[in-house]
């Protein structure tokens, strides 16, 4: 079993390589950056082309743009309240950045670079803790600044809920502070671990297909098993990709609600 684990290179797919040839290499422009740019451009194109017709009865692209706008907008207003409209652009950007990272990584494409396998895949930039933790740190810094601007020093009563017995203060305050500080950690690790686990499972089952096919005719027939698992996994990962972007956005909304209303 240990020997098998060494032949499956499960984490090699997350290796960063420079993209766009020598120009990209000179500025350390990796394929993760490339796919971030692609994701951003895709969303901008979708919104631009979708918002342009301004038809009363929307076409497909306009319906997509309107639905995505309405989806995030209602999420902001439902979770944060009327003040949530101010944060709508931030939540919208965050949601679509994460969603594009999750979804584009599922495309079996290789247009722009060749890696050491010879067959490259579209890159899931949200599978890197550096990316997700940067996003989570941005969220938590923003939430703290919003809370401090709205409530001033009154914000620190957040760590001691009103009505709690005074005797419990030495217990409650450290627990609240730790739970506040662990928010960015859990927010970033949730997204990153979901993406890594999904792609490692793809890699492991894909390796099973190759290993079994190498074992002769019976193995080739039996390799249909892991192939079917991978097909089912792709459907599941589509769900997870959307769900994790949704959870990231909605947790940001919940934190902002806490910042605006203090419990």
């Amino acid at each position, binding site marked *: *079993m*240990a020997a098998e*684990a060494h032949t499956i290179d*499960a*984490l090699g797919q997350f290796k960063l390589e420079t993209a766009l040839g020598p120009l990209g290499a000179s500025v350390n422009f990796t394929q993760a950056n490339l796919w971030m740019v692609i994701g951003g451009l895709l969303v901008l194109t979708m919104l631009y082309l979708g918002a342009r017709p301004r038809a009363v009865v929307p076409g497909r692209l306009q319906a997509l743009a309107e639905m995505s706008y309405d989806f995030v907008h209602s999420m902001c207003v439902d979770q944060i309240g009327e003040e949530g409209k101010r944060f709508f652009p931030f939540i919208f950007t965050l949601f679509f950045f994460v969603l594009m990272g999750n979804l584009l990584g599922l495309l079996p494409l290789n247009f722009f670079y060749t890696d050491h396998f010879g067959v490259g895949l579209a890159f899931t930039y949200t599978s890197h803790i550096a990316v997700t933790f940067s996003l989570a740190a941005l969220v938590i810094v923003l939430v703290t600044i919003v809370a401090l601007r709205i409530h001033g020093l009154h914000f620190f009563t957040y760590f001691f809920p009103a009505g709690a017995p005074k005797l419990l203060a030495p217990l409650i305050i450290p627990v609240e502070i730790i739970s506040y500080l662990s928010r960015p950690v*859990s927010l970033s*690790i*949730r997204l990153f*671990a*979901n993406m*890594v*686990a999904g792609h*490692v499972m793809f890699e492991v089952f894909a390796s099973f297909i190759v290993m079994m096919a190498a074992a002769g005719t019976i193995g080739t027939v039996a390799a249909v098993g892991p192939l079917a698992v991978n097909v089912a996994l792709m459907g599941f990962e589509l769900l997870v990709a959307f*769900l*994790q972007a*949704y*959870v990231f956005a*909605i947790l940001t909304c919940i934190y902002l609600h806490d910042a605006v209303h203090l419990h």
Partner: protein
Amino acid sequence: MDVAAAKALGAGIAVIALAGVGIGIGNIFSALVTSVARNPSARDQVFGLGILGFALTEAVALFALLIAFLILFT
């Protein structure tokens, strides 16, 4: 015991946490089914909450899985 065997055992022990996650996710969906059966008109609001709880619980499973990966592959 050699290192490879210890690693395999450690990875196996690390994913014991999945037992708790299984109980948690089962609880969430049983509560979801019960509440929708009691009040079908609340389905839209309750479903979002259920999915959120599912994602938060699933994250615990992934923390365990991540530790297992760290043990196995590093």
